[in-house]
């Protein structure tokens, strides 16, 4: 296995008040060809009341992490090491009843595709009332009112009437607002948003981001925001976690990450972001190469095959987390004073 035990991430101090505390988490997928090491020694924390952005390209494992935090991973996925804690509750080995108690109530999720993630044959009012089933003292009328209120809050006009409508009667942007409304209905401590704006155009995206920021202020919960879009992460998040091929390569406060990125991958990502390109040239900068095959993770740094600042040590020895600044750490040999060979 790559890498030694990771150092405690500085920003995770005060773990007692972390809504989500992931330490050294490793997840494998069992496949006919052998185990695919989807996540390896991932550590991150979502402090109470903050917005943490999880950024990574396709295949980096960000959705797997989100689903793990909800206990919704697919059948062949297995947590083989590490801990996953929500508000002090150990999520590993939680019973189905215990999961049902917290899902939708203390942890909620907003999915990427608003087209398919809502029940097409049930009105949104019914679906929103379904979510409130744990509140046994409330009359249906009360539940309905609560649903209408939050619909209004997310910007759906004439909410009372819209409750009777079905998902396909709404546009994509509206549907995602409804999904967010459903997610926040029970005022959860943590909202996990798995690429909620990827399927939307830029105008809608901006609206949704704005909405999330406002709502979080109001409701006081935390958000784990997953995206591959750096611009959105920069706008919304307090803390950024950069995921590459199943490993956290860098994490820290948003300003630090964007102004002083230390990991070559983060640097390359920032360079590639079209919004930040100041040099007008014919070629768009890209990161050459592909994400590695996670069936057989190569020894050494996982980013080595594509790293522009590669040197010999990178290929043989996996780097460990190194502190760069307050709350900022990255996993790269360049940061190791003893460094190059």
């Amino acid at each position, binding site marked *: 296995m790559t890498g030694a035990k990771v150092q405690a991430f500085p920003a995770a101090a005060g773990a007692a008040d972390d809504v989500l505390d992931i330490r050294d988490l490793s997840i494998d997928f069992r496949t006919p060809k052998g185990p695919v090491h989807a996540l390896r020694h991932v550590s991150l924390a979502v402090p109470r009341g903050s917005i943490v952005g999880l950024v990574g390209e396709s295949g980096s494992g960000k959705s797997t992490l989100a689903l793990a935090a*909800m206990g*919704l991973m697919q059948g062949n996925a297995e947590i083989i090491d590490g801990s996953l804690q929500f508000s002090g509750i150990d999520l590993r080995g939680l019973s*189905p009843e215990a*999961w*049902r*108690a*917290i*899902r*939708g*109530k203390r942890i*909620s*999720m907003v*999915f990427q*595709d608003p087209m*398919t*993630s*809502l*029940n*097409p*044959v*049930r*009105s949104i009012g019914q679906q929103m009332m*379904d*979510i409130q*089933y*744990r509140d046994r003292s409330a009359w249906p009328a009360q539940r309905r009112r609560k649903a209408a209120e939050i619909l209004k809050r997310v910007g759906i006009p004439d909410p009372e009437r819209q409750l009777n409508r*079905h998902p*396909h*009667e709404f546009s994509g942007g509206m549907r995602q607002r409804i999904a967010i409304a*459903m997610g926040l209905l029970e005022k959860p401590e943590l909202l996990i948003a798995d690429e909620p704006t990827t399927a939307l155009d830029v105008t809608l995206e901006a609206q949704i981001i704005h909405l999330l920021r406002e709502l979080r202020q109001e409701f006081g919960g935390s958000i784990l925001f997953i995206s591959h879009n750096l611009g959105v992460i920069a706008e919304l998040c307090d803390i950024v976690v950069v995921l590459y091929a199943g490993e956290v390569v860098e994490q820290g406060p948003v300003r630090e990450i964007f102004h002083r990125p230390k990991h070559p991958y983060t640097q390359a990502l920032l360079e590639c972001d079209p919004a930040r390109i100041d040099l007008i040239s014919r070629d768009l900068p890209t990161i050459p190469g592909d994400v590695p095959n996670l069936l057989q993770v190569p020894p050494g740094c996982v980013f080595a095959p594509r790293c522009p600042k590669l040197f010999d040590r990178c290929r043989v020895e996996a780097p460990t987390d190194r502190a760069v600044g307050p709350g900022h750490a990255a996993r790269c040999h360049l940061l190791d004073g003893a460094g190059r060979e």
Partner: protein
Amino acid sequence: MLVYLLQRIGLSILICVTAMTLLFAAIHVIPGDPATIMLGTRATPEVRERLNKEMGLDQPVPIQLVKFLGRAATGNLGVDVWSKRSVGTIVMENLPYTLILILTGLGWAALVGIPLGCYSAIRRNSFIDKFTGVISVGTISIPSFVVAIYALLFFSIQLGLFPVIGAGERGDLEDQLWHLVLPSFAVGLGWVGYLARIVRASMLEVMGENHVRTARAFGLPEPKIVLHYALRIAILPTVTLLALAIGGLLSSAVFAENIFARPGIGKLIVDSANVRNYPVVQGAVMTTVALFAFAMPIADFIVAWLDPRVRSAL
């Protein structure tokens, strides 16, 4: 929605008319006039001619067809030359028995088959799933009349649990229900397996879809998810298939009515066919065709009504 309704009904009417024409043509293409065949060789030419005239067979065939279609549109299916009663009346006397039989047969098949299919999908590869799979294939392939005969043999004759013949005393509901048990069992048995398989396949597909994952993400209780988030959608293609089932059910009813000596359209057709009573055969067969031809648009409407997406699109 209304336009769609009219279109589908129009298509069914067209199919019925074509079917009627085919039937009519078939009857008239065969060698030997119906009168001779019905009366036998002992009929004198005058009797034959009178019968022909009564049945309207002395007119040119196209005119006969048009007259027949016209009358059929108003519900007049002709007159039974033997009993002089209207064919329509005879058919209406027998139709309810058949309808009750096929509805009960389908009913119990759905009550058993749909939950079995559902359970098989949720607990894949469990013993019940595998068992249901084998039984499904078995019951689908075994001919329904063999089931009926064996059921009659074991439960009625050998064990004496159920009555052997008839539909029961009129007005005595319990007696009639008792008479209904074995025939509807025989009619429905094949459909249990069929429904179980379809529902299982449909459910497996739907359970893997995103909105079911979302429902889980909101911690909804499993029964609610299965019922309202999965089955509610999975059942839609089943409804369409149930309409197609009407044809098979009518065929099974023919056997069941014959074997259990129950009144009904099936028995009517067989008995009339045996004595070459063409008007009755024609009228009864056309009724079954109409039933089948209209069952499909009706099923499509039920689906449209159940599925808000289709409702909006129309």
